[in-house]
């Protein structure tokens, strides 16, 4: 039984998890840093425990303090949200040792998917197409050049331990490879403490399409269709996501859904996870990686399937069987999420901090806002700049885009700079409205602006 859940996260996702727990009659415990004491996630929880000073390493990433918060709170389960400890096996293992349920996949599954080379091998074993590239870690620069010439330029140098768009370099010729190889390795060592690199073919202007999966602890595993996440910033971070991928053929949807289930099943996956793919203009798809946690953009899947993903996570974590079969999962309509960030679009998206003096959020039919901030809240420099998620739903993509446009126009924030003006321009772009997008969209759009 799960009766009391500690949410080992902050901000909008902590609040989102708390909301579902409350609906399910589960007691909630928030954790917070001294800088976050006024966040809505703290106010919404039944109780809250301060775990440290402002910086992430002192608080949300302070393993001993977060684990002890779980222990002294008497929580019988921990929801990790996304980021922070959500994909750290050490955290899940420590909780297991304390007799506290980790609401997520098994340590074995996190491990299998946490290493990009191992994940790719698992995908190949599950007959899932992968991007052509090195067969595992590349030993040295000479090998990297040999592989790159074999598969053809451009190629990507990718840190084995990378993630969130970090640790990736594009190389266009053997002449550049030497210099970029060292740079990428140094970056990987500094960011992830692991300099191991992969070489992969760079698929030109692909779409980023991911498939949501969820499994129970009895071997049942289903997918909840796809999300189209091609609108990414220059650092490969998603900005606008939608579900379904409107231009996708039914045949491709079926093939990708089945491939995602095969990959997840291959590592004995349970709980919620996302299998990410690149899709080229000829509907070839390639396994990219699997995220072994709830995703930021999960609300678009919720909107079109009518399911509460956090509820499903908790239900399978407490040993229940999945309440529905693959055939019973249906989707209807179209949903789009826009990530609202405290970043100044006129200053190369530099983080903006300070007091929010005005916060007029949009509303109305088909509009959902997930946020932990409000007028009077202070944005601090210590955390990710995402301050809200605006999710809209429409009967089809055109209606969803219209709703998003109206909602963004209605959204007024003062005191800090946000990316809202940029999003307003983006949703008015003719290619965006036509759904003619790829991961090359934002760089092109910014170039034209």
């Amino acid at each position, binding site marked *: 039984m799960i009766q009391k859940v500690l949410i080992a996260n902050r901000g909008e996702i902590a609040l989102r998890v708390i909301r579902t727990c409350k609906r399910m009659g589960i007691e909630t415990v928030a954790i917070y840093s001294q800088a976050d004491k006024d966040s809505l996630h703290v106010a919404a929880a039944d109780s809250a425990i301060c775990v440290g000073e*402002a*910086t992430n390493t002192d608080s949300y990433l302070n393993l*001993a303090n977060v684990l*002890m918060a779980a222990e002294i709170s008497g929580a019988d389960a921990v929801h990790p949200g996304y980021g922070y400890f959500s994909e750290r096996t050490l955290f899940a293992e420590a909780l297991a040792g304390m007799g506290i349920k980790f609401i997520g996949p098994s340590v074995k599954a996190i491990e299998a998917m946490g290493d990009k080379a191992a994940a790719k091998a698992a995908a190949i074993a599950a007959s899932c197409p992968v991007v052509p590239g090195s067969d595992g870690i590349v030993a040295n620069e000479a090998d990297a050049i040999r592989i790159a010439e074999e598969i053809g330029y451009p190629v990507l140098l990718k840190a084995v331990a990378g993630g969130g768009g970090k640790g990736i370099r594009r190389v266009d010729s053997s002449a550049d490879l030497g210099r970029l190889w060292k740079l990428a390795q140094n970056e990987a060592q500094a960011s992830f403490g692991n300099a191991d690199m992969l070489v992969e073919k760079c698929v030109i202007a692909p779409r980023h399409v991911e498939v949501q999966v969820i499994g129970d602890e009895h071997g049942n595993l289903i997918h909840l269709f796809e999300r189209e996440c091609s609108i990414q910033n220059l650092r490969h971070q998603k900005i606008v996501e939608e579900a379904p991928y409107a231009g996708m053929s039914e045949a491709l949807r079926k093939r990708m859904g089945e491939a995602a289930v095969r990959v997840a099943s291959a590592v004995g996956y349970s709980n919620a996870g996302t299998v990410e793919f690149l899709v080229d203009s000829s509907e070839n798809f390639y396994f990219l990686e699997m995220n072994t946690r709830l995703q930021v953009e999960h609300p678009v899947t919720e909107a079109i399937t009518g399911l509460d993903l956090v509820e499903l996570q908790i239900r399978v974590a407490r040993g229940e069987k999945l309440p529905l079969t693959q055939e019973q999962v249906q989707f209807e309509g179209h949903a789009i999420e826009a990530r609202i960030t405290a970043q100044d679009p006129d200053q190369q998206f530099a*983080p903006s901090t300070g007091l929010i003096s005005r916060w007029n959020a949009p509303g109305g039919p088909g509009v959902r806002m997930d946020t932990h901030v409000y007028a009077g809240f202070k944005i601090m420099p210590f955390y990710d700049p995402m301050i809200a998620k605006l999710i809209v739903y429409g009967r089809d993509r055109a209606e969803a885009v219209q709703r998003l446009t109206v909602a963004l126009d209605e959204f007024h924030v003062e005191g800090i700079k946000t990316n809202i003006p940029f999003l307003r321009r983006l949703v008015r772009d003719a290619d965006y409205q036509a759904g003619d997008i790829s991961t090359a969209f934002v760089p092109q759009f910014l170039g034209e602006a």
Partner: protein
Amino acid sequence: MKELDLETIRHALRTARENGYEVVRIRSGAEAFRGTLDLTRPESATPELVFMPEEMDADPEETEGQAFEEIRAMAVGYFAPGSLFEVSASVNKGDVVGSIRALGISNDVTSSVSGKITEVLVGEGDPVQFGQALARVEV
């Protein structure tokens, strides 16, 4: 400066300037930063930066002419009082007054001030959170 990178400090300074604060103090683990902003100068001017050790505690609280400070928990866990942890005991800054047990490890709690303990706020085995007041000290 591993934790307190320049980016963090710059943001903090910008926030301070936007809100009209003169002094910025940031602390992360053993590292501390203190900056004094000259609010009369234009934003482009470089603020005067001083790196110096900082005490976590806020300014002493004044009550009827006496100054009190609190000894606070610097970890999450279970508190165990030391021999000095009692009303009327005199403590010096840096004295070990108890410990916080976390994950089987005992972490010393030291007094951040010198003075006389006037009130103890937690007892043996009490769970404590980060920053929680453990005792009041008349300084």
